[in-house]
Protein backbone atom coordinates (compact mmCIF):
# COMPACT_ATOMS: atom_id res chain seq x y z
CA UNK A 1 0.00 0.00 0.00
CA UNK A 2 1.11 3.57 -0.62
CA UNK A 3 1.14 4.13 3.13
CA UNK A 4 3.07 6.16 5.65
CA UNK A 5 5.76 3.49 5.96
CA UNK A 6 6.96 3.98 2.38
CA UNK A 7 9.48 6.68 3.24
CA UNK A 8 12.25 6.43 0.65
CA UNK A 9 12.89 9.86 -0.87
CA UNK A 10 10.23 11.72 1.15
CA UNK A 11 11.29 15.12 2.43
CA UNK A 12 10.69 17.39 5.36
CA UNK A 13 11.49 15.12 8.31
CA UNK A 14 14.56 17.09 9.32
CA UNK A 15 18.01 15.92 10.43
CA UNK A 16 18.75 12.36 11.55
CA UNK A 17 19.98 13.46 14.97
CA UNK A 18 21.90 10.40 16.14
CA UNK A 19 22.10 10.15 19.92
CA UNK A 20 25.52 9.57 21.39
CA UNK A 21 25.82 6.45 23.54
CA UNK A 22 22.15 5.77 22.98
CA UNK A 23 20.59 3.31 25.45
CA UNK A 24 18.64 0.35 24.07
CA UNK A 25 15.50 1.64 25.78
CA UNK A 26 14.40 5.17 26.56
CA UNK A 27 11.68 4.24 29.06
CA UNK A 28 10.88 1.14 31.08
CA UNK A 29 7.69 0.60 29.09
CA UNK A 30 9.73 0.15 25.92
CA UNK A 31 11.24 -3.01 27.44
CA UNK A 32 7.78 -4.41 28.07
CA UNK A 33 6.62 -3.29 24.60
CA UNK A 34 9.42 -5.29 22.99
CA UNK A 35 8.65 -8.33 25.10
CA UNK A 36 4.87 -8.16 24.75
CA UNK A 37 5.21 -7.85 20.98
CA UNK A 38 7.54 -10.83 20.72
CA UNK A 39 5.66 -13.07 23.14
CA UNK A 40 2.32 -12.25 21.52
CA UNK A 41 3.81 -12.97 18.11
CA UNK A 42 5.03 -16.31 19.44
CA UNK A 43 1.39 -17.40 19.84
CA UNK A 44 1.59 -18.12 16.13
CA UNK A 45 -1.66 -16.45 15.09
CA UNK A 46 -0.08 -14.10 12.56
CA UNK A 47 3.12 -13.88 10.56
CA UNK A 48 5.71 -11.12 10.23
CA UNK A 49 4.13 -9.86 7.01
CA UNK A 50 0.73 -9.44 8.62
CA UNK A 51 2.32 -7.60 11.54
CA UNK A 52 4.24 -5.27 9.19
CA UNK A 53 1.00 -4.57 7.34
CA UNK A 54 -0.79 -3.80 10.60
CA UNK A 55 1.89 -1.22 11.40
CA UNK A 56 1.79 0.48 8.01
CA UNK A 57 -2.02 0.54 8.21
CA UNK A 58 -1.98 3.05 11.04
CA UNK A 59 -3.32 6.43 9.97
CA UNK A 60 -0.40 8.39 8.49
CA UNK A 61 -0.76 11.18 11.05
CA UNK A 62 -0.66 8.60 13.83
CA UNK A 63 2.27 6.71 12.27
CA UNK A 64 4.43 9.83 11.95
CA UNK A 65 3.58 11.05 15.44
CA UNK A 66 4.50 7.72 17.03
CA UNK A 67 7.83 6.28 18.11
CA UNK A 68 8.62 2.84 16.71
CA UNK A 69 7.66 1.00 19.90
CA UNK A 70 4.40 2.97 19.94
CA UNK A 71 3.77 1.86 16.36
CA UNK A 72 4.43 -1.73 17.45
CA UNK A 73 1.95 -1.57 20.33
CA UNK A 74 -0.79 0.17 18.36
CA UNK A 75 -0.50 -2.43 15.61
CA UNK A 76 -0.32 -5.25 18.16
CA UNK A 77 -3.62 -4.19 19.69
CA UNK A 78 -5.21 -4.43 16.24
CA UNK A 79 -3.71 -7.87 15.60
CA UNK A 80 -4.86 -9.15 18.97
CA UNK A 81 -8.40 -7.89 18.34
CA UNK A 82 -8.47 -9.27 14.78
CA UNK A 83 -7.49 -12.72 15.99
CA UNK A 84 -9.89 -12.79 18.93
CA UNK A 85 -7.41 -12.53 21.80
CA UNK A 86 -8.58 -9.21 23.22
CA UNK A 87 -11.68 -7.06 22.96
CA UNK A 88 -12.45 -3.37 23.16
CA UNK A 89 -13.96 -4.05 26.57
CA UNK A 90 -10.70 -5.61 27.78
CA UNK A 91 -8.80 -2.53 26.63
CA UNK A 92 -11.34 -0.12 28.08
CA UNK A 93 -11.13 -1.78 31.49
CA UNK A 94 -7.41 -2.55 31.41
CA UNK A 95 -8.01 -6.13 32.49
CA UNK A 96 -9.24 -9.43 31.08
CA UNK A 97 -13.02 -9.26 30.75
CA UNK A 98 -13.90 -11.29 27.65
CA UNK A 99 -12.74 -14.80 26.81
CA UNK A 100 -9.89 -15.24 24.36
CA UNK A 101 -9.20 -17.43 21.37
CA UNK A 102 -6.89 -20.36 22.04
CA UNK A 103 -3.31 -19.69 20.94
CA UNK A 104 -1.23 -22.31 19.15
CA UNK A 105 1.37 -21.96 21.88
CA UNK A 106 2.42 -19.80 24.80
CA UNK A 107 6.09 -18.87 24.97
CA UNK A 108 7.49 -19.80 28.38
CA UNK A 109 10.57 -18.16 29.83
CA UNK A 110 12.63 -21.33 29.66
CA UNK A 111 12.01 -21.62 25.93
CA UNK A 112 12.96 -18.04 25.04
CA UNK A 113 16.68 -18.64 24.33
CA UNK A 114 15.94 -21.49 21.92
CA UNK A 115 13.15 -19.59 20.17
CA UNK A 116 15.26 -16.46 19.69
CA UNK A 117 18.24 -18.52 18.51
CA UNK A 118 16.08 -20.33 15.98
CA UNK A 119 14.43 -17.19 14.61
CA UNK A 120 11.91 -17.47 11.80
CA UNK A 121 13.61 -18.38 8.53
CA UNK A 122 11.42 -17.51 5.55
CA UNK A 123 13.39 -19.07 2.72
CA UNK A 124 11.38 -21.74 0.93
CA UNK A 125 11.94 -24.03 -2.03
CA UNK A 126 10.54 -22.70 -5.31
CA UNK A 127 9.37 -25.28 -7.83
CA UNK A 128 10.32 -23.30 -10.93
CA UNK A 129 13.83 -22.19 -11.92
CA UNK A 130 14.82 -18.56 -11.41
CA UNK A 131 13.63 -16.41 -14.32
CA UNK A 132 16.59 -14.01 -14.14
CA UNK A 133 20.33 -14.31 -13.66
CA UNK A 134 22.99 -11.89 -12.47
CA UNK A 135 23.61 -9.18 -15.05
CA UNK A 136 20.12 -9.27 -16.56
CA UNK A 137 18.53 -5.86 -17.15
CA UNK A 138 15.07 -5.63 -15.59
CA UNK A 139 12.30 -3.11 -15.11
CA UNK A 140 10.30 -3.02 -11.92
CA UNK A 141 6.56 -3.17 -12.00
CA UNK A 142 4.42 -0.06 -11.92
CA UNK A 143 1.52 -0.69 -9.58
CA UNK A 144 -0.27 0.67 -6.53
CA UNK A 145 -1.71 -2.29 -4.63
CA UNK A 146 -4.00 -1.45 -1.72
CA UNK A 147 -2.58 -4.39 0.25
CA UNK A 148 0.89 -5.15 1.55
CA UNK A 149 3.86 -4.97 -0.78
CA UNK A 150 7.61 -4.67 -0.39
CA UNK A 151 8.30 -2.81 -3.61
CA UNK A 152 8.79 0.79 -2.49
CA UNK A 153 7.25 3.56 -4.57
CA UNK A 154 10.60 5.12 -5.44
CA UNK A 155 11.69 1.85 -7.09
CA UNK A 156 8.57 1.22 -9.20
CA UNK A 157 8.75 1.40 -13.01
CA UNK A 158 12.53 1.76 -12.87
CA UNK A 159 15.23 0.11 -14.92
CA UNK A 160 17.87 -1.78 -12.98
CA UNK A 161 20.20 -4.75 -13.17
CA UNK A 162 20.03 -8.07 -11.38
CA UNK A 163 23.10 -8.16 -9.16
CA UNK A 164 22.42 -11.42 -7.37
CA UNK A 165 19.93 -14.24 -7.39
CA UNK A 166 19.13 -14.93 -3.74
CA UNK A 167 16.81 -17.70 -2.58
CA UNK A 168 13.17 -18.54 -2.69
CA UNK A 169 11.32 -16.54 -0.04
CA UNK A 170 7.77 -16.30 1.27
CA UNK A 171 5.89 -13.71 -0.79
CA UNK A 172 4.77 -10.99 1.61
CA UNK A 173 2.11 -9.53 -0.69
CA UNK A 174 0.01 -12.67 -0.24
CA UNK A 175 1.29 -13.93 3.10
CA UNK A 176 0.33 -10.69 4.88
CA UNK A 177 -3.29 -11.32 3.94
CA UNK A 178 -3.61 -14.99 4.84
CA UNK A 179 -3.39 -15.98 1.19
CA UNK A 180 -0.48 -18.34 1.55
CA UNK A 181 3.28 -18.22 1.42
CA UNK A 182 3.52 -18.62 -2.39
CA UNK A 183 7.33 -18.43 -2.34
CA UNK A 184 9.15 -16.71 -5.19
CA UNK A 185 12.75 -16.10 -6.13
CA UNK A 186 14.23 -12.95 -4.63
CA UNK A 187 16.86 -10.88 -6.42
CA UNK A 188 19.06 -7.99 -5.45
CA UNK A 189 18.36 -5.34 -8.08
CA UNK A 190 20.62 -2.31 -8.35
CA UNK A 191 19.62 1.06 -9.81
CA UNK A 192 21.66 4.11 -10.70
CA UNK A 193 20.84 7.19 -8.63
CA UNK A 194 19.76 9.25 -11.66
CA UNK A 195 17.38 6.48 -12.82
CA UNK A 196 15.55 6.78 -9.53
CA UNK A 197 15.83 10.44 -8.63
CA UNK A 198 16.25 12.07 -12.02
CA UNK A 199 17.65 15.52 -12.53
CA UNK A 200 20.27 16.54 -10.02
CA UNK A 201 20.73 13.05 -8.59
CA UNK A 202 24.07 12.08 -7.08
CA UNK A 203 25.93 10.37 -9.97
CA UNK A 204 28.05 8.35 -7.52
CA UNK A 205 24.94 6.78 -5.96
CA UNK A 206 23.56 3.34 -6.61
CA UNK A 207 20.63 1.93 -4.64
CA UNK A 208 19.60 -1.69 -4.41
CA UNK A 209 16.43 -3.35 -3.29
CA UNK A 210 15.66 -7.00 -2.76
CA UNK A 211 12.79 -7.78 -5.11
CA UNK A 212 10.49 -10.76 -5.47
CA UNK A 213 10.35 -12.16 -8.99
CA UNK A 214 6.83 -10.95 -9.75
CA UNK A 215 7.95 -7.36 -9.16
CA UNK A 216 10.24 -7.64 -12.19
CA UNK A 217 9.97 -7.78 -15.98
CA UNK A 218 12.78 -8.29 -18.50
CA UNK A 219 14.06 -4.98 -19.87
Amino acid sequence: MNGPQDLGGQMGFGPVAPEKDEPYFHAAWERRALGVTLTAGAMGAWNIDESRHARESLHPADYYASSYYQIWIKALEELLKRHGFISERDLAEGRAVDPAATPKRVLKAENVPAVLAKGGPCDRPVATPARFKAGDPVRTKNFSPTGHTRLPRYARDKQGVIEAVRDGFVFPDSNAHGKGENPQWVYTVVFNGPEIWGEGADPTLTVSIDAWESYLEPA
Partner: protein
Amino acid sequence: MSHDHDHDNEFDPFAARVRALETILTEKGLIDPAAIDVIVDTYETKIGPRNGARVVAKAWSDPAYADWLRRDATEAIASLSYTGRQGEHMQAVFNTEETHNLVVCTLCSCYPWSVLGLPPVWYKAPPYRSRAVIDPRGVLEEFGLTLSAEKKIRVWDSTAELRYLVVPMRPQNTEGWSEEQLAELVSRDAMIGTAVATVPA
Protein backbone atom coordinates in the same frame (compact mmCIF):
# COMPACT_ATOMS: atom_id res chain seq x y z
CA MET B 1 6.05 -10.58 39.61
CA SER B 2 9.73 -10.70 38.93
CA HIS B 3 9.79 -7.40 37.11
CA ASP B 4 8.61 -3.94 37.99
CA HIS B 5 7.42 -0.87 36.19
CA ASP B 6 8.53 1.61 38.77
CA HIS B 7 10.85 3.48 36.44
CA ASP B 8 8.04 4.79 34.28
CA ASN B 9 6.35 8.04 34.97
CA GLU B 10 2.95 6.90 36.27
CA PHE B 11 1.30 9.72 34.32
CA ASP B 12 2.77 8.62 30.98
CA PRO B 13 -0.33 7.41 29.13
CA PHE B 14 1.68 5.13 26.88
CA ALA B 15 3.33 3.38 29.80
CA ALA B 16 -0.15 2.76 31.19
CA ARG B 17 -1.34 1.45 27.82
CA VAL B 18 1.50 -1.07 27.55
CA ARG B 19 1.02 -2.14 31.16
CA ALA B 20 -2.69 -2.70 30.55
CA LEU B 21 -1.99 -4.79 27.47
CA GLU B 22 0.54 -6.93 29.32
CA THR B 23 -1.92 -7.35 32.18
CA ILE B 24 -4.78 -8.44 29.91
CA LEU B 25 -2.64 -10.95 28.02
CA THR B 26 -1.14 -12.31 31.22
CA GLU B 27 -4.53 -12.71 32.91
CA LYS B 28 -5.75 -14.63 29.88
CA GLY B 29 -2.76 -16.91 30.01
CA LEU B 30 -1.61 -15.86 26.53
CA ILE B 31 1.83 -14.63 27.51
CA ASP B 32 4.31 -15.35 30.28
CA PRO B 33 5.68 -12.13 31.85
CA ALA B 34 8.83 -14.04 32.84
CA ALA B 35 9.42 -14.70 29.14
CA ILE B 36 9.39 -10.96 28.57
CA ASP B 37 12.06 -10.57 31.24
CA VAL B 38 14.27 -13.09 29.44
CA ILE B 39 13.74 -11.40 26.07
CA VAL B 40 14.64 -7.99 27.48
CA ASP B 41 17.69 -9.36 29.26
CA THR B 42 18.85 -11.07 26.07
CA TYR B 43 18.74 -7.89 24.00
CA GLU B 44 19.98 -5.64 26.76
CA THR B 45 22.95 -7.70 27.90
CA LYS B 46 23.71 -10.58 25.50
CA ILE B 47 23.09 -9.63 21.87
CA GLY B 48 24.60 -6.39 20.61
CA PRO B 49 27.09 -4.84 18.21
CA ARG B 50 30.02 -6.61 19.88
CA ASN B 51 28.82 -9.69 18.00
CA GLY B 52 29.16 -7.96 14.66
CA ALA B 53 32.48 -6.40 15.63
CA ARG B 54 33.91 -9.87 16.25
CA VAL B 55 32.73 -10.97 12.82
CA VAL B 56 34.42 -7.97 11.20
CA ALA B 57 37.64 -8.42 13.18
CA LYS B 58 37.81 -12.06 12.16
CA ALA B 59 37.25 -11.12 8.52
CA TRP B 60 40.07 -8.59 8.76
CA SER B 61 42.39 -11.17 10.30
CA ASP B 62 41.58 -14.29 8.35
CA PRO B 63 41.28 -14.09 4.54
CA ALA B 64 39.64 -17.52 4.37
CA TYR B 65 36.99 -16.37 6.83
CA ALA B 66 36.49 -13.13 4.88
CA ASP B 67 35.95 -15.17 1.74
CA TRP B 68 33.42 -17.39 3.52
CA LEU B 69 31.67 -14.31 4.86
CA ARG B 70 31.44 -12.92 1.35
CA ARG B 71 30.01 -16.15 -0.06
CA ASP B 72 27.75 -17.31 2.77
CA ALA B 73 27.45 -14.77 5.54
CA THR B 74 24.70 -16.69 7.34
CA GLU B 75 26.89 -19.76 7.81
CA ALA B 76 30.11 -17.82 8.43
CA ILE B 77 28.41 -15.78 11.16
CA ALA B 78 26.68 -18.84 12.60
CA SER B 79 30.13 -20.43 13.03
CA LEU B 80 30.73 -17.77 15.72
CA SER B 81 27.39 -18.79 17.34
CA TYR B 82 25.56 -15.64 16.24
CA THR B 83 22.25 -16.91 14.91
CA GLY B 84 18.56 -16.36 15.23
CA ARG B 85 15.86 -13.79 15.05
CA GLN B 86 16.40 -11.11 12.39
CA GLY B 87 19.67 -12.70 11.36
CA GLU B 88 18.29 -15.76 9.60
CA HIS B 89 19.48 -14.64 6.15
CA MET B 90 22.66 -12.58 6.35
CA GLN B 91 24.63 -10.81 3.68
CA ALA B 92 27.97 -9.08 4.31
CA VAL B 93 28.94 -6.12 2.14
CA PHE B 94 32.55 -4.97 2.08
CA ASN B 95 33.66 -1.37 1.85
CA THR B 96 36.50 -0.77 -0.61
CA GLU B 97 38.65 2.16 -1.68
CA GLU B 98 36.10 2.78 -4.43
CA THR B 99 32.77 2.17 -2.71
CA HIS B 100 31.17 2.93 0.63
CA ASN B 101 28.14 0.87 1.67
CA LEU B 102 25.16 2.10 3.66
CA VAL B 103 22.22 0.04 4.92
CA VAL B 104 18.67 1.24 5.46
CA CYS B 105 15.15 -0.14 5.63
CA THR B 106 12.91 2.47 4.04
CA LEU B 107 9.73 0.41 4.56
CA CYS B 108 10.03 -0.51 8.23
CA SER B 109 13.08 -1.07 10.42
CA CYS B 110 14.69 -4.30 9.24
CA TYR B 111 18.05 -4.66 10.95
CA PRO B 112 20.45 -7.55 11.64
CA TRP B 113 19.56 -8.13 15.29
CA SER B 114 21.75 -11.23 15.67
CA VAL B 115 24.94 -9.25 15.02
CA LEU B 116 24.00 -5.67 15.95
CA GLY B 117 21.29 -6.11 18.59
CA LEU B 118 18.29 -3.80 18.70
CA PRO B 119 18.40 -0.86 16.28
CA PRO B 120 18.90 2.70 17.52
CA VAL B 121 15.94 5.08 17.39
CA TRP B 122 17.31 7.08 14.47
CA TYR B 123 17.54 3.95 12.29
CA LYS B 124 13.79 3.40 12.73
CA ALA B 125 12.73 7.03 12.39
CA PRO B 126 11.54 8.90 9.27
CA PRO B 127 14.53 11.24 8.77
CA TYR B 128 17.02 8.40 8.19
CA ARG B 129 14.60 6.10 6.37
CA SER B 130 13.53 8.84 3.98
CA ARG B 131 16.89 10.39 3.22
CA ALA B 132 19.39 7.51 3.19
CA VAL B 133 18.33 6.51 -0.33
CA ILE B 134 18.20 9.99 -1.87
CA ASP B 135 20.80 11.99 0.05
CA PRO B 136 23.23 9.54 1.65
CA ARG B 137 26.09 12.03 1.61
CA GLY B 138 23.99 14.55 3.52
CA VAL B 139 23.03 11.87 6.03
CA LEU B 140 26.64 10.81 6.52
CA GLU B 141 27.66 14.43 7.11
CA GLU B 142 25.27 14.46 10.06
CA PHE B 143 27.21 11.54 11.48
CA GLY B 144 30.42 13.49 10.98
CA LEU B 145 31.50 11.38 8.02
CA THR B 146 32.53 13.22 4.85
CA LEU B 147 33.25 11.00 1.86
CA SER B 148 35.47 12.16 -0.96
CA ALA B 149 33.56 13.37 -4.02
CA GLU B 150 34.77 10.49 -6.17
CA LYS B 151 33.87 7.76 -3.67
CA LYS B 152 30.89 5.75 -4.86
CA ILE B 153 28.02 5.17 -2.48
CA ARG B 154 25.95 2.03 -2.52
CA VAL B 155 22.77 2.05 -0.47
CA TRP B 156 21.20 -1.29 0.39
CA ASP B 157 17.47 -0.98 1.09
CA SER B 158 16.52 -4.10 3.09
CA THR B 159 13.16 -4.63 1.44
CA ALA B 160 13.11 -8.43 1.85
CA GLU B 161 14.37 -10.83 4.53
CA LEU B 162 18.09 -10.46 3.81
CA ARG B 163 19.87 -8.59 6.56
CA TYR B 164 22.99 -6.63 5.72
CA LEU B 165 26.21 -6.21 7.68
CA VAL B 166 28.72 -3.65 6.41
CA VAL B 167 32.33 -4.76 6.74
CA PRO B 168 34.30 -1.51 7.04
CA MET B 169 37.86 -1.20 5.74
CA ARG B 170 40.58 -2.18 8.17
CA PRO B 171 42.41 0.91 9.44
CA GLN B 172 46.08 1.28 8.64
CA ASN B 173 48.74 0.73 11.30
CA THR B 174 46.93 -2.22 12.83
CA GLU B 175 49.29 -4.94 11.61
CA GLY B 176 49.74 -7.63 14.19
CA TRP B 177 46.71 -6.60 16.24
CA SER B 178 44.68 -9.38 17.80
CA GLU B 179 41.06 -9.90 16.82
CA GLU B 180 40.06 -8.62 20.25
CA GLN B 181 41.98 -5.38 19.69
CA LEU B 182 40.61 -4.99 16.18
CA ALA B 183 37.02 -5.52 17.33
CA GLU B 184 37.38 -2.45 19.53
CA LEU B 185 37.74 -0.34 16.38
CA VAL B 186 34.40 -1.48 14.96
CA SER B 187 31.39 0.52 16.07
CA ARG B 188 27.74 -0.28 15.48
CA ASP B 189 27.52 2.65 13.09
CA ALA B 190 30.49 1.38 11.07
CA MET B 191 28.55 -1.84 10.47
CA ILE B 192 25.47 0.12 9.30
CA GLY B 193 27.67 2.34 7.16
CA THR B 194 27.08 5.66 8.93
CA ALA B 195 30.68 5.57 10.17
CA VAL B 196 34.00 4.02 9.26
CA ALA B 197 36.23 1.97 11.54
CA THR B 198 38.00 3.93 14.24
CA VAL B 199 41.54 4.91 13.30
CA PRO B 200 43.90 4.05 16.15
CA ALA B 201 45.59 7.06 17.73
